[in-house]
Every structure is written in structure tokens, then in C-alpha cells.
């Protein structure tokens, strides 16, 4: 037998990695073209605003979600107070509302005819002055994004605090430090890696946001890229903006690496015991419950309540066949993309586990790449690439599809699904990679020693043990895709709608109440997904306890 037979995983991983980076070739080539006049204008007059707005939005959103997420995670894991158990999972729920839906809902609620102004007028005889209290502004956008992204930090930190930091916190307690002292002197430094991971997730989401900024009229990189391209038809400038945005992203990733330090953050630490909580009494307990309650009200209960109210008013017109078809479209796209992502993720993660060489490490990094690339950039990249691909395949189309239009793939769902795979592969990959890490190599080796080849070992040994990781990867990817707006908006085929694009259309027509049924469908599907996910993760953790 030949000594170095290239294995299935090596070849397949190489192909996937090439597919993932190939599309960026076009984008980079375009950068070396001579800039046009429009770009000169953007550079001279607008670029400063784009950079400034983006930085302000990113900085304050990160700051506030960090503040809220950290304090909530600490409160939930270190103290006992009324309704703590309920808040523990309920505080994840704001994640079920896409930030653009939160934005539309709050904007509509605080408009002149919205519930806030009407109530205030009837109570006080006067509403809030729109000049001072206008949610459709930078502070409003920061509020919306912070509230809706805060759960990322809350979840990562809570898992961390309930897990590995218990012994550290307890030793801090033994040394007679106060609770607050422990928080700042022990918890924050120890959980630095988790904090940085959560924060960079939030920052990437903000950079990717299109829905909130465009509705509130804030010029960020994402909105500028879309505007250059679709309103002004200036692809060249859109590409240049995308490139600058990528420079920011790379700087962020570099910063993250430095801040994280050498310790990489991992949730799957072996043995841990829950932190013993301190019971809060009297006013402190009231304060804790109120704080958690207010965040939950603002981030979930109020907007959902408003959506339900609108839905009751409008469902007769909006909850028809069409809504169900859109729901199926959305789910279908999510499931197809998620399956492809899981297959790709398994191949690359397994190659990394079995080979653990430089090449496999590069492939792992490549599959993580997409998540750091803002939706607007992914959109441009994929369109350019697919138009190119279609031109290139044109002779083939003439043979097998005579009479077809010039653009076949770029007009089909293949484009959107490919973009989703590129952008969300990281989410699935990370779950699977974590799963493989937990399993390790020994069962694989044992199976081979018992006469099973690579394929049989995978299906009989690895796959059954990987099931929880696959399940959580699948749910996470589906959740992300169902909530996703900009890619769906731009890359969908003509006449193809998802729940998210429909909501966007309604909002653009200033018919936000009519969007409520579709919005609620998204919230409902995503909330169910999140709760299932939360359960599986908790169960997995308990199992680890037993072993």
C-alpha cells in the first residue's frame, strides 16, 4: 500500500477551503482598478462620517451590552433573589427578536401616534418633545443594539461563571473579599477571555447591522455600501468601502487576539461544581429582581406585547397563505444551508482533529473567517463572484439550458445559500470542533484497532457521540439565518421572499403594524430554537457532571 495516500478528509477540506476563499479574489482584483469620481467625493466628504458613525455605534453598543450582560450574568450566578430561576433562561430571550424588528417596534411605539406618546398625552396632557426624545437617532440605535445583543455577553459569561470560575470565586470569598470586591478583583480578570470573546461577537454584529442603521437613517459602513451600490449603482465605491470595513474588522480581530492573551476561552471545561449563591434579602432582593425585570421588559416583553397587540389588529389581512409560504421559505433556506454547513464543518473539524498539522489549522481558520466578514461585504463578494461564474459557465448553459437567461446561478437560490454557508460556517464549525475536542481521538483509535476503517469509524463511533454538538450547531445556524436580513434582502432571487425581507418591506412602506404577524413568526421560531438549545446545553453540562 502506498505510504502517503491523500485521504478523503484532506482532499475534501482542501476543496472546501478553496471554495471559501475563491470568491474574494474578484473583490481584491477590483481594488486595484483606478478609482472613479464618485469615490473621490465619498473619500473627501463622506468617509469621515461613515467611520465616525460606525465607531460611535460600535463603541457605545459594546460598552452598554458589556455593562448589562456582565452585571446580569454576575447577578444570576452569584446571588439568589426572587424569580432568579426564571430570569436565568428568560434573559436570553431578547436574542429571539432581530434588532431591526426591535428598532421598527420601538420607533413605531414612540412615534406621534404610537402608544408611548398617546399615553403620555392622555396622562400629562403633553407628549415628549420629539426634538429631545427621538428614538430614530444615534442614541436610539445604541439602545436598540445594546439591548438586543446583550444576551451574547450574558450567555457566554454566565456559562463561564457557573462553570470554571466557581473555585476561584470561592477562594476569593474565603479570603474575606466582599462580593463586589470579588467581582472586580477576581471575576473580571479571570473571565477576561470570555469577556473579550463576547464583546467581539457584539462588535461584529454591529458592523454587520443594516436594518437598524438604515431605518434610523444613520450612515454607517454597511448602509453606505448598500447605498453606493443600489441607489447610486457605483459598484466600485461599494467595493472600496467594503475593503476599508475589512481593515477595521482585521484590526478588531488583532485586538481581540492581544486582549485575550494566551489563555483561550473554552466553555467545555471538565469538572466543575456550581457556585454557591448568596441570598439577597429585602431591598437588595427587590433591586435585583427589578433590574433583571426591566431589562427583560425592554428587551422582550414590551416589544413582543406590542407586536401581539398589532397582530390582533391586523392578522385578518396579513396571516394568509402567504405568511405560511414565507415561513416555509425561511425555514427551508435555513435548513438547507445548515445541513451544508454541518457537512463542511464535520469534514474540516475532523481533518483538523486527525491531522493537526499546519494545513489543517489554516483550513480551520478559513472556516472561521466568514463570521467576521460583515453581511454587506459578503453580499458584494458573492454577487461579483457569481456573475463572474455565470459568464464563465455561459457556454455550458447554451448547451444544457438553451434559451435560458444569461445569469443562471446568480438569479437562483444557490447564490443566497452559498452566501449563508460562507457567512455562518463558523457558527456550525465551532460547535462541531468543540464536540470533537470533547470526544478526543481515543475512541477513533480504538475503533481502528478493532478493524474498522475511517468511514465505518465515523458513522459508528464519532457521529453518535457528536450528536449533541451537531444539534446545537444546527440550531445556532438556523437561528442566525432566520434572523438575518441584509443577505436575504440583496441576494434573494426575484419574487422570492422570506419572513425577514417581508418585514423589511412593510417597514419601508411605513406599515409596521402590518409587519407584526411576520415578525412574531420569526420571534416564535427563534425563541423555540433558543430554548431547545438552552436545554441541550444544560443537559450536556449535567452529563459532564456525572462522569
Amino acid at each position: 500500500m502506498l505510504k502517503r495516500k491523500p485521504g478523503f478528509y484532506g482532499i475534501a477540506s482542501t476543496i472546501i477551503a478553496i471554495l471559501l476563499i475563491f470568491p474574494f479574489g474578484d473583490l481584491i482584483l477590483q481594488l486595484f482598478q483606478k478609482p472613479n469620481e464618485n469615490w473621490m467625493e465619498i473619500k473627501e466628504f463622506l468617509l469621515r462620517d461613515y467611520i465616525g458613525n460606525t465607531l460611535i455605534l460600535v463603541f457605545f453598543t459594546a460598552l452598554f451590552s458589556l455593562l448589562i450582560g456582565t452585571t446580569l450574568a454576575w447577578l444570576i450566578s452569584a446571588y439568589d433573589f426572587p424569580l432568579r430561576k426564571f430570569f436565568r433562561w428568560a434573559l436570553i430571550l431578547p436574542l429571539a427578536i432581530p434588532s431591526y424588528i426591535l428598532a421598527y417596534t420601538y420607533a413605531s411605539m414612540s412615534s406621534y401616534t404610537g402608544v408611548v406618546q398617546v399615553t403620555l398625552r392622555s396622562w400629562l396632557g403633553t407628549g415628549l418633545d420629539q426634538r429631545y426624545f427621538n428614538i430614530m437617532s444615534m442614541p436610539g440605535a445604541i439602545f436598540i443594539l445594546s439591548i438586543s445583543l446583550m444576551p451574547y455577553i450574558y450567555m457566554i459569561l454566565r456559562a463561564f461563571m457557573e462553570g470554571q470560575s466557581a473555585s476561584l470565586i470561592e477562594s476569593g470569598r474565603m479570603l474575606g473579599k466582599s462580593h463586589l470586591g470579588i467581582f472586580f478583583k477576581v471575576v473580571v480578570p479571570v473571565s477576561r477571555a470570555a469577556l473579550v470573546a463576547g464583546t467581539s461577537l457584539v462588535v461584529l454584529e454591529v458592523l454587520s447591522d443594516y436594518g437598524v442603521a438604515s431605518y434610523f437613517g444613520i450612515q454607517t459602513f454597511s448602509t453606505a455600501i448598500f447605498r453606493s451600490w443600489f441607489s447610486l449603482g457605483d459598484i466600485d465605491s461599494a467595493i472600496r468601502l467594503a475593503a476599508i470595513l475589512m481593515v477595521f474588522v482585521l484590526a478588531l480581530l488583532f485586538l481581540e487576539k492581544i486582549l485575550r492573551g494566551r489563555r483561550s476561552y473554552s466553555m467545555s471545561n471538565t469538572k466543575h461544581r456550581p457556585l454557591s449563591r448568596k441570598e439577597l434579602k429585602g431591598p437588595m432582593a427587590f433591586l435585583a429582581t427589578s433590574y433583571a425585570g426591566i431589562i427583560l421588559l425592554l428587551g422582550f416583553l414590551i416589544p413582543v406585547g406590542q407586536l401581539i397587540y398589532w397582530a390582533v389588529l391586523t392578522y385578518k389581512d396579513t396571516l394568509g397563505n402567504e405568511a405560511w409560504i414565507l415561513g416555509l421559505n425561511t425555514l427551508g433556506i435555513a435548513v438547507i444551508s445548515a445541513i451544508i454547513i454541518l457537512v463542511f464543518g464535520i469534514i474540516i473539524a475532523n481533518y483538523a482533529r486527525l491531522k493537526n498539522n499546519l494545513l489543517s489549522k489554516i483550513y480551520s481558520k478559513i472556516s472561521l473567517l466568514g463570521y467576521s466578514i460583515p453581511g454587506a461585504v459578503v453580499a458584494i463578494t458573492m454577487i461579483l463572484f457569481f456573475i463572474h461564474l455565470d459568464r464563465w459557465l455561459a457556454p455550458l448553459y447554451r448547451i444544457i439550458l438553451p434559451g435560458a437567461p444569461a445569469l443562471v446561478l446568480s438569479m437562483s437560490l444557490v447564490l443566497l445559500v452559498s452566501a449563508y454557508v460562507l457567512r455562518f460556517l463558523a457558527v456550525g464549525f465551532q460547535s462541531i470542533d468543540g464536540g470533537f475536542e470533547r470526544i478526543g481521538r481515543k475512541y477513533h483509535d480504538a475503533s481502528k484497532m478493532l478493524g474498522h476503517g475511517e468511514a465505518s469509524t465515523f458513522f459508528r463511533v464519532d457521529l453518535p457521540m457528536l450528536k449533541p454538538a451537531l444539534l446545537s450547531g444546527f440550531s445556532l445556524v438556523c437561528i442566525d439565518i432566520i434572523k438575518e436580513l441584509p443577505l436575504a434582502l440583496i441576494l434573494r432571487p426575484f419574487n422570492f421572499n422570506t419572513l425577514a425581507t417581508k418585514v423589511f418591506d412593510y417597514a419601508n412602506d411605513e406599515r409596521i403594524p402590518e409587519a407584526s404577524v411576520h415578525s412574531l413568526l420569526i420571534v416564535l421560531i427563534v425563541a423555540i430554537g433558543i430554548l431547545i438549545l438552552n436545554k441541550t446545553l444544560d443537559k450536556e453540562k449535567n452529563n459532564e457532571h456525572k462522569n
Partner: protein
Amino acid sequence: MNIKIENLTFFYPGNKKPSLKDINLEIKEGEIVSIFGESGSGKSTLLRLLAGLEHKGSGTIDMDGVRVLGPNSFVQPEKRGVGMVFQDYALFPNMNIEKNIAFGLNKMSNDKKKARVKEMLELVNLEVFAKKYPHELSGGQQQRVALARALAPAPGCLLLDEPFSNLDTDLQVRIRGELKEILLKAKVTTIFVTHDRADVRALADRVAVLCEGIMVNLGTVEETIDQ
């Protein structure tokens, strides 16, 4: 199984120092050979190379005249007819004891498989645990399951990596005796790794002593470690 190792040298990727250097060792059918040495001396690495779980070594390994490792040849672990008991047993947690033992018998008919599993369970005295899962068994019992699982496909050679290191001291003494009996019954060529002289005395026909990847001594128990 007759095994012949010649000039075997092995580096882990990224290491400057070889984990094994120029190993030469011949093992005869039915022999029980111990690889003895301190932690980090390369014992597990040698076993993994014999098993086929590592393949970047230079030098050669022949098994019953077949070149399983060499400049232009490599036989995959699943094709070598070698059984292995891992240090932490690696019993599949999602399969019960019966299924674990039957795992290496997938080419047999169902009836034959059943009979073989029963035979193995009797050999290691665990008939009543057939339907239990690995985590429901004690360490010593798990170890015997791992042994039964490795022996079930009737391998030409059995590799054991520190077979007693995860057991309490009392248990170690008892299981050593049991293991010897089982190995003699199964008549299988055995290579076992240990850092404990008592293991060697109780079980080995011959000993290879490793030190920092180099084989510094080879011979009977009296000729080597008893000196």
C-alpha cells in the same frame, strides 16, 4: 505473530528530539514482552507505531513477514490484526458491554458474533454485566472489558499501554494474576508497556528497557531490571 522492528526512529511533528531512536527488536510468536521505562521515555510511542496509529517513522516494522511500516509501505491499523488496550480503556460510552466487545466482530455472522461475545465475557468473568454501560462498571471491570474487546477478534498480537495504572494498588496485584492467566489461555503474542517493576516480574518473558527514546537494555527479567 512474529514481529521485527529495525532501525526505528520517530519524531512527533514539531519536536526537535526524536521520541524513539534507532530501535531494533524482534519478538517471537506467543512471547510476552514488556517495554519498561520512565514516563516520557517513548513507550507509548513505540506501541502506537506498532499499532499503526502513527506512521511517520523511519526504519521498518514487519509483522509475520509483511512490511507494515517502511519507506514505501504502510498498513492501516485496521488491517494489521493487532489488538490494543488503551491506558484509559477507551470503551465506547454509548454502547453497552456486549456491544463494545462485539464491535470488532463486524465481519462475523450474528450467531458467531453472539457466541464469541459470550466466550469473551466468560474469559474475563463478566457475564452478568453484558447489558451494563461502561460508566456503571468499576475500574477493574472496565479494564477487563477492554481486554475482552481487544481479544475478541483474535488478534495476532495484543498491545497493552500501562494496563494497571488506573487501578488501586490492591486491585493491581489481583488483576496481574488474572491477566497472566487470560493471556496464557488466549495464547497471544503480547507487548505491554509499564513503568512498574512488579508488572514486569509477574508477566514478562523478556524486557526491553527504554530511556529517552533509546533502547538501553534487552533480555530476560533477571538479565535486565533485576540487576
